[in-house]
């Protein structure tokens, strides 16, 4: 259990303001403001909207931990974490523009409806200026649309679908996480080196939007290195038992199985694939291999021994050795006793970046903040130099290719970094056909006024 003295103090303080408000009744004042939820008084509220129930609850919990830590660092408590390594020095640990940071939390339930309801409550009731977090692309796109309509900033959390900054990109939304295209671009050279150019891939794909975009991206990038795609089979979400889909793979002439699954689906599909003995088999005179394009720490933990030697990609990992990563892992590890996950990193960094953009813009106005974030280049937050591209609000940075470790010493280093693919290899033009083509636009900035 974590105790945030900040919030306690904050609540007492707000109580005092309420008292003052009672003393001076302002009857029937209209609340016309320059932009949505312009902070008054000397606090500002962030909304952390993460899954707290449902299959991704543990991931949401880790995101929440990181966000609490970020708020502490912004308010000058703790050791400052990445604030010390961040290349922009606009933040000094005294809150943002002299305002102390507070936060409210909500439960997305990993459902787009529930996530929007929770986000709306934050906007309408708690007066947040920014919403951060989430653990699925469906939720990210839905909440991003809502924030655009309401006129606040959205920082996306874990969302890997191309659509979030592709055809569904929004002027008020930003994404620090990488995407399916980048996964494909980063993985292809490593796969080529490890398994050669003459391979036949069989895709099992989760039957929903994210699955489609990841499958499309991986197929394109593996075909570019000469692989052939034998088949792509869509599997129901939450199927549990994938045996009927896995069993025909060996007989199809394929020698690589690509699992475009996430979370529990991935844990079950890879476990069952290993159970079917796929990885012990020889096909076309080659060792049969499995690839999981998108990894997360929790998935790796859930899949256990089954992922040994399996390649995949990741946005960030605590085993990186740059100073930013080290500072973050240290303060997170000392507070919570475990290394942060890559979605925790994303949420932490996004909170700091938002705060920094406000400080540089000198205003909480979402349009000013968005302008400050657009085209922003920085370093010291892990992954080396990073760019927030102005055209689509996608973050560009190095992508990690991971492999299941043969002999992990704890449950936290089940994965090892095999390659850091430089940012140039994963960059694409903003009007790339997988990202909505030339039609996709950010639209106009909305500050709710």
């Amino acid at each position: 259990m974590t105790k945030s003295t900040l919030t306690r103090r904050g609540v007492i303080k707000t109580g005092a303001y309420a008292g003052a408000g009672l003393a001076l009744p302002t009857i029937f004042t209209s609340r016309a403001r320059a932009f949505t939820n312009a902070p008054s008084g000397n606090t500002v509220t962030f909304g952390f909207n993460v899954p707290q129930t449902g299959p991704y609850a543990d991931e949401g919990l880790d995101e929440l931990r990181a966000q609490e830590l970020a708020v502490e660092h912004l308010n000058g408590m703790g050791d400052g974490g990445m604030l010390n390594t961040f290349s922009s020095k606009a933040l000094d640990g005294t809150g943002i523009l002299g305002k102390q940071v507070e936060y409210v939390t909500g439960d997305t339930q990993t459902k787009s409806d529930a996530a929007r309801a929770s986000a709306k409550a934050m906007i309408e009731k708690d007066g947040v200026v920014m919403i951060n977090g989430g653990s699925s692309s469906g939720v990210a796109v839905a909440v991003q649309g809502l924030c655009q309509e309401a006129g606040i900033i959205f920082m996306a959390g874990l969302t890997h679908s191309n659509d979030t900054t592709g055809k569904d990109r929004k002027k008020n939304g930003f994404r620090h996480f990488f995407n399916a295209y980048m996964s494909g671009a980063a993985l292809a050279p490593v796969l080529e080196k490890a398994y050669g150019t003459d391979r036949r891939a069989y895709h099992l794909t989760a039957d929903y939007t994210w699955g489609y975009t990841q499958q499309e991206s991986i197929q394109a990038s593996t075909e570019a290195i000469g692989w052939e795609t034998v088949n792509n089979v869509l599997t129901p979400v939450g199927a549990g038992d994938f045996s009927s889909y896995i069993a025909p793979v060996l007989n199809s002439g394929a020698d690589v199985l690509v699992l475009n699954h996430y979370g529990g689906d991935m844990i079950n599909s890879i476990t069952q694939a290993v159970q079917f003995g796929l990885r012990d088999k020889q096909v076309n005179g080659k060792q049969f291999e499995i690839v999981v394009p998108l990894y997360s720490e929790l998935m790796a933990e859930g899949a256990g021994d089954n992922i040994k030697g399996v390649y995949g990609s990741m946005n960030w990992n605590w085993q990186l050795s740059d100073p930013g990563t080290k500072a973050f892992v240290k303060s997170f590890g000392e507070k919570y006793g475990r290394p942060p996950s890559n979605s925790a990193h994303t949420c932490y960094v996004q909170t700091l970046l938002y705060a920094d953009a406000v400080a540089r813009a000198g205003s909480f106005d979402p349009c000013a903040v968005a302008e400050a974030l657009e085209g922003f280049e920085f370093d010291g937050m892990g992954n080396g130099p990073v760019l927030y591209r102005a055209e689509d609000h996608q973050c560009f940075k190095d992508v990690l290719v991971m492999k299941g470790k043969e002999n992990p010493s704890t449950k936290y280093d089940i994965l090892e970094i095999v390659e850091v693919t430089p940012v140039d290899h994963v960059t694409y033009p903003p009007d790339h056909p997988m990202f909505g083509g030339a039609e996709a636009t950010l639209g106009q900035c909305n500050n709710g006024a």
Partner: protein
Amino acid sequence: MFGLSARDTRFLLIVIALTLLTPILLQPFPEGSSLAQFNAGYPDLMQKFAIFGIFAIGFNILFGLTGYLSFGHAAFLGVGSYTVVWMYKLLGYNVLPGLLLSVVISAAFALLIGFISLRRSGIYFSILTLAFAQMSYNLAYSVLTPITNGETGLQVYASDPQILAGSGAPTSPHLFGLVMRNSAQVDLGGWVFTFNVGYYFCAVMAILAFYISLRIFRSPFGMMLRAIKTNQTRMNYTGLNSRPYTLAAFVISGMYAGLAGGLLAAMDPLAGAERMQWTASGEVVLMTILGGAGTLMGPVLGAGFIKYFENIFSKINDGILHGWFAFLPDGLEDFIVACFHPFVGKGWHLTLGILFMLVVIFLPGGLVEGMQRIWRLVRRRKSGGPKRKDPEHRPTAAPHMAE
């Protein structure tokens, strides 16, 4: 008045007054106080109260009156939402065409499903409706992605035709220029009241829905439905064919669900597939039974109860708990926070589950029965005299179904 008895008119007027005053009633704590966490008077939640109230009222017409337990009503909710968002995409952001069409389409859908499902009764009927709804959900989530936009949910893009939208038309749902999202905030001392256009639109719809359901309850048709619940076999022996009546009830409740789904999309222009999942169907069953099946007010109470928990309890985190108990000494504070911790925030499901069980165990008639008991207790107190014990435990008359 309105073709109602004096008593029902009074009842209706009370409901109207409560509905219209909701923005004030649900905001009992001043802004900034630590209890403000429990205020529910913000537009989104109030809209949800009204909309799920309509959904539950409609469901009650089927379940409360005929006893047919449908586990597939969420399908109509989803159909209504998809219809409205498609109308936004094709015609423009005016909610009226979409809402009308959502009722029509969900009625057609209900007619089809009802016609097939009502060939069976009891749990066989429940499973049939569940099967239809789950098929709709599974397909909407995956295969029908071109129509429903799958997991992400159907939404409006700038590239959509919107042929009826003029150049100056609002860019969010509206009724002839009356934008649903707009609200007026009134600062009254420490209290802040939000009067939202969308909420009042939903509220008017909910009152209409309630009125129609009241009329159905009091009509010969309603009597016929109740007769089906009591003893269908006997009804059939008297030469009456009950099927047209149950089908009519099914279609009416399907239309209510479609309207509720349409209103969801009218308040927030997005239609997610999860709306059709069996858990959503289960939710309306819970709302109705929890509030009191077969009563007029019960389903609305149940809907409010569940939505309140989902939205308010899930947002209480440890930081807020520490805020409440900050006045206690540190050790005690941590202890009390640790006691509350499993039940709030990410544990709100647990609290809801426990409350379900308690209500079902101790209040078989739902929340309405609980209120009646309290009311009786208060009245007895008022009339003075100690509560007269009944040593022989004679059976007491059951309260009338529709009270």
